[in-house]
């Protein structure tokens, strides 16, 4: 039996195959086909020469949803909403994200008011009906909407999280009048209060609906043509996977499908290696994603947005920064050296690619510093020209007096590192975590090259560099569990309710969750559920998430748990009355994980030594050995300065750091001489 994970990136589509019988992995890469990613996916499967008939599980990280939103290429969306609230999407939250610019403009809504139609109906916060839905008026309204065949409709009524009856009735009416349309209701996309965020998430879902259905249909057809017979799974933003049917219905759940694979892989590796607290740093060509993992738990948030649009589906808490290998170094009007967010991308690429790029990038700087090997072909295709890199750096240096070429190159790398450090501080220090309590897990093509510099800035002591850092995200999709996050807004003041009521509410959501997973073929014994409650003191307006494990089985226990969380996060707790405002259940359908093969390479370090070259560290060149990673003997220890190269990635060890080869071939980089 074989498992296949495919991750579609901006430049390459990566695939990983795990062969259960041989306990072995194989990797392949094909150029991505941005117009229709199916081409790249099928191409990479061809390169693996797989018998798809023998594949048991196919998991796919998609970026089509993210890109459609960022590029504004989604469907024409229409909206039905409660009378009096036509402008919820356009008024939005009224906040101004850009300060000190009189010309900054509000993001225009995905559904303009011309495509928003009001319907006479009104629910209240407790689910009671203030005004019944006028179905006759609704049918007349639907009849006069001048819609196109590939359009989508979002049905967004106030307080539908408390009572979805009107939204459901409206959906039935639409399905009768406009069969074949992509229709979704706000309560099915996100049954939580705060209408702007729920409506926005629902509109995004409708915006992606037709596109995603179309893509996944083509993909399924392409896979079927290769005689793949099992379910297709899609990586979802919450770090799990879902069935393709669900992804078609809730495409908004896939917008962080790409980075989710890496985070899932990180958790898996952290568990195997006994390192529960990780900060991941996935550095690619144009950007870097960082993520903080505490106690091997996926950090899930529902307070994010994409392209200025609120998206409240549960998603892994990723902090993205526009600094990667291709990021361009430049001077602003004030003569200040900056790196990124502009990127040379794949075309023209860094100056050293020799494809017409003239501006110095982080990759050029690393080449000039000897950290990248001019002979090493990135992804096996592109030769690097150090002279072009140096010329680009020199051009910039002419405008920054008094700095030598190498010092400037080192400066470019340091600024890129500073931006990543700042991103990591935001997810760690700003949230009350000390990065020194975490292991830095560096992957993506450029991650391992900058890992030590990042760790030094943050005073982190240890770094993990997984095997195959460039394919880590695809590997992650292989080992991801099915995951569904359910949340229901329901306000219960603790002094007015009973534990039985709380328990019954959780139990109802759990039952729904389990049934849904069983419906997708997950055996009951493989299903795990985890409860949490959104709670606050009466009078507060934002809730805190409190985990509710089985040990908490009474109201006093729940109160104590909330007080503890409040104290930990906010530095104080009070005797005030509390309320639960939302009930959340994560349902996980566990899949078997591939067991990683042991690293069995024999021989000595000398066998792995492929060259020596001068590498620039802290202001001067030092002669450094260059090792070939796949020939490093098991349990080897390497002291800095040294460079460890492998296909698609380079690990750089300065003086004062050393690396050890771990059981499965991963590198542990730590402070101290060998």
């Amino acid at each position, binding site marked *: 039996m074989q498992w296949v994970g495919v991750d579609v990136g901006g430049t390459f589509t990566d695939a990983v195959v795990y062969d259960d019988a041989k306990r072995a992995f194989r990797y392949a890469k094909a150029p991505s086909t941005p117009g229709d990613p199916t081409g790249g996916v099928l191409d990479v499967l061809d390169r693996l020469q797989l018998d798809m008939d023998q594949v048991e599980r196919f998991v796919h990280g998609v970026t089509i949803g993210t890109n459609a939103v960022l590029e504004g290429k989604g469907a024409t969306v229409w909206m039905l909403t409660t009378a*009096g*609230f036509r*402008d*919820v999407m*356009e*008024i939005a*939250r*009224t*906040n*101004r994200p850009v*300060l*000190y*610019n*009189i*010309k*900054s*403009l*509000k993001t225009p809504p995905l559904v*303009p*008011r*011309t495509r928003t139609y009001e319907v006479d109906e009104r629910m*209240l*916060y407790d689910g009671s009906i203030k005004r019944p839905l006028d179905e006759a008026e609704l049918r007349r309204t639907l009849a006069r909407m001048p819609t196109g065949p590939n359009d989508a409709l979002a049905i967004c009524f*106030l*307080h539908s*999280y408390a009572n979805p009856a009107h939204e459901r009735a409206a959906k039935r009416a639409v399905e009768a009048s406009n069969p074949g349309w992509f229709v979704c209701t706000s309560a099915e996309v996100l049954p939580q*209060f*705060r*209408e*702007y*965020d729920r409506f926005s998430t629902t509109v995004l879902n409708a915006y992606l609906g037709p596109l995603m259905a179309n893509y996944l249909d083509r993909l399924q057809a392409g896979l079927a043509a290769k005689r793949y017979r099992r379910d297709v799974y899609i990586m979802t933003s919450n770090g799990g996977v879902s069935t393709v049917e669900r992804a078609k219905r809730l495409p908004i759940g896939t917008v962080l499908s790409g980075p989710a694979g890496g985070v899932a892989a990180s958790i898996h590796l952290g568990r195997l290696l006994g390192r529960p607290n990780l900060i991941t740093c996935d550095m690619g060509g144009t950007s870097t994603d960082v993520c903080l993992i505490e106690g091997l738990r996926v950090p899930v948030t529902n307070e994010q947005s994409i392209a200025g649009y609120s998206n409240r589906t549960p998603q892994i808490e990723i902090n993205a920064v526009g600094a990667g290998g291709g990021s361009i170094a430049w001077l602003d*009007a*004030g*003569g*200040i*050296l900056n790196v990124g967010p502009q990127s040379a991308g794949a075309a023209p690429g860094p100056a050293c690619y020799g494809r017409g790029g003239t501006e110095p990038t982080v990759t050029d700087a690393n080449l000039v510093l000897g950290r990248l090997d001019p002979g090493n072909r990135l992804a096996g295709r592109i030769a690097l020209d150090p002279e072009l890199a140096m010329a680009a750096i020199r051009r910039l240096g002419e405008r*920054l007096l008094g*700095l030598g070429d190498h010092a400037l190159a*080192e*400066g470019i790398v*340091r*600024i890129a590192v*500073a931006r990543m450090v*700042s991103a990591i*501080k*935001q997810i760690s*220090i*700003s*949230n009350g975590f000390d990065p020194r309590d975490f292991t830095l897990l560096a992957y993506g093509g450029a991650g391992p090259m900058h890992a030590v510099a990042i760790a030094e800035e943050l005073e982190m002591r240890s770094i993990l560099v997984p095997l195959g850092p460039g394919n880590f995200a695809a590997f992650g999709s292989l080992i991801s569990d099915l995951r569904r996050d359910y949340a229901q807004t329901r*306000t219960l003041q603790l002094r007015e309710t009973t534990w039985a009521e709380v328990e019954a509410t959780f139990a109802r959501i759990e039952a729904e969750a389990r049934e849904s997973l069983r419906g997708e073929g997950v055996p009951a014994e493989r299903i795990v559920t985890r409860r949490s409650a959104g709670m606050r003191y*009466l*009078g*507060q*307006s*934002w809730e805190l998430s409190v985990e509710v494990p089985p040990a908490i089985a009474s109201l006093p226990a729940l109160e104590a748990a909330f007080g503890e969380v409040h104290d930990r*996060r*906010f*530095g*104080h707790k*009070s005797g005030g009355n509390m309320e639960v405002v939302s009930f959340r259940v994560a349902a996980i359908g566990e899949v078997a994980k591939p067991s990683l093969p042991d690293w069995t390479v024999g021989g000595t370090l000398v066998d792995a030594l492929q060259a020596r070259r001068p590498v620039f560290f802290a202001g001067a060149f030092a002669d450094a050995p260059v090792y070939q990673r796949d020939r490093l003997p098991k349990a080897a220890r390497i002291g800095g300065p040294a460079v460890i190269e492998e296909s698609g990635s380079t690990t750089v060890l300065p003086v004062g750091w050393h690396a050890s080869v771990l059981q499965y071939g991963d590198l542990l980089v730590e402070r101290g001489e060998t």
Partner: protein
Amino acid sequence: MMTAKSIGAANAQPVDPITLEVVCEGLIAIVKEMRATIIRASYSSVIYEFDDFSCALFGPEGEMVAQSWDHPGHVLPLPWGVRCALDDFRGDLKPGDAILLNDPYRGGTHLNDVTLVYPLFDEAGRLIIFPAVRAHWVDVGGMVPGSYSGLSSNIYQEGVRIPPIKIFEAGRPNRAAMSLLMANMRVPEEREGDLNASFGACKVAENRIRKLIAKYGQETVMAAVAINLDRTERRLREKIAELPDGDYYYEDYLEFYNEGRLDPVLARIKLTVAGDQIIADFAGTNPQVPGVVNSSLAVAGAGVFVAIKSTLDPGGAVNHGAFRPITLKAPEASIFDVRQDAPAGAHGEVRKRGVSVALGALAQIMPERISGDLCGSSFPNAIGGYNKRRQRQYVYYEAPAGGNGGFLEADGSSAYVNVDFGNLPSIHNVEALENEMPIFVERCVLRTDGGGEGQRRGGVGMQREVRLLDAEGSYSVLSDRAVLPPWGVLGAGSGKPYHVSVRRDNEVIEFDTPGKVTGYPVRRDDVVVMRSSGGGGYGDPLEREPARVKTDLDFGYVSAERARDGYGVVFTPAGEVDEAATKALRGKLQAGRFRLTIKADDALDPYVGAKGKRRMLDLSAADAAKLGVAADDLVELRGRNPAPLRAWVRVAGNGRQGQVPLDEFGRKVLGVKNRESVVVMKLGMPPMPKAMAR
């Protein structure tokens, strides 16, 4: 402006560019961490939901060295408060001391904004970089819940005034002061939580600052800071130097009611560009009045700074270096430099009028970089009472955002907080609000025709209607621009002004003092209707592409009447633009504009008022009839300069037809000379049951 002296950049040691960036970014990261702490720990929803607070780091002389994503209206006046705190306790500060203040006369803004200053010292006892926090406490006492009152006549009605006091001494809380404060505020336990949040943020900053200094050295850090401020200063100076030297004048108003009669107060600016610096002189601005239209020079100056920075140099850093090229002057005890014991609750309005007058002057220098006037008020609405269902006191508070001015490239955004605000929402989610308070939201829609018409239209405001579900409550609002609408530039029209009313059964209750209400008793099923102002337009509406007017009509931003009368666009019965009829109508509207010839009259004092000052315009009876105006009607004059001049009509028996006398200041505002002609437009005013003040 706002500046203490520079921190010795001249003798600063050189710092390599990389360390420079790392240190400067590091300081901003500390501010970000402070912000995260405040949001997490505060009790006032205004702080953690509406983000109504700011954090910054200061140098030993009180200069602001780092801030982050902070509300400009808060953070820009913050150095003034810090300086007052340092001045008061100079020589008497010890490690562990923390100074609290909210005194609008001593570096505060309005009383709700409570500032904590936390000086830090090195081992030798010298001040080093230190933090300060300013946060909006939802109530600081005073005569109405929320402490916002549109009709206060002195500061004692607005809440507890805190001059700089040590609230912590050597790390120990000053219990006496704390008890006194808490005894005079509503829901004191929440206020104590707010104070703890600010203190916690300062402690976090202390830890980080000390680490930064330990890592890079005190001298390097201070040198990096000095270089950073200097380059920020240089950047802005270079931009200013590109502007033509000269004096530029503008005037505008705030709306004061003297004994219930409208008595507008004058805001005047002479903005001087001299080489690479700007001097903003408010000479001639109205003396302070016993009404909520006064604030400090820190606040009015913040408005000027925002106007300059966000037109001339968007994107540049904001720290003390950016303040240095700007000097501020105002008459003492004026509405822009308030002194004891005038009310000072109008900081939002004064700041916005600071923006308006600066924009009006800047428009004469660089019309391509400015916009029409902003919506012009922060519009805080509050309903307070006892919530039966949830068995607790509540203060409902919303400040529905208005429109923004149109500008060269685009229409202004609608219902979008202005550039002098931070990144904060102005309204609640309906679903959260209805769950938490005895409030039912009837509608929330954009205001058709709310934006000033123009080649680029002003953004529209919103109309938000809330119904009270409990038996009784108390409604207050403090706004401006409820009479004088935000102006357009370059021939564009005004935004529709703010308006509030109460709908009771089938009756609409209007207020005698538009936009200013204190503690009006509302009862069950009353609907408070809040309408926020639109932004001013940009450019002649008759030049607006008819296709855009059609889109506006389709979107409902503009009514059919306004499309025809304001934009001169005619549609065919099928709804398409009728090009020929449009051209004809536009020609007719253009020709029909009422023009008068200026007669220079430098002996004229055009201003009247009881405690206020408003410009009067003497029209002949015949001209008044032609224009359709009567005495005390509001008119607007449009000259060569982009921004208009407002005045109230005085029908002069001996006035010469076709001619209008104008003083020198008025001519400078309009950029017109003797015998040149100007367009005169009638502006609507809400009905006033009482005559204007004399």
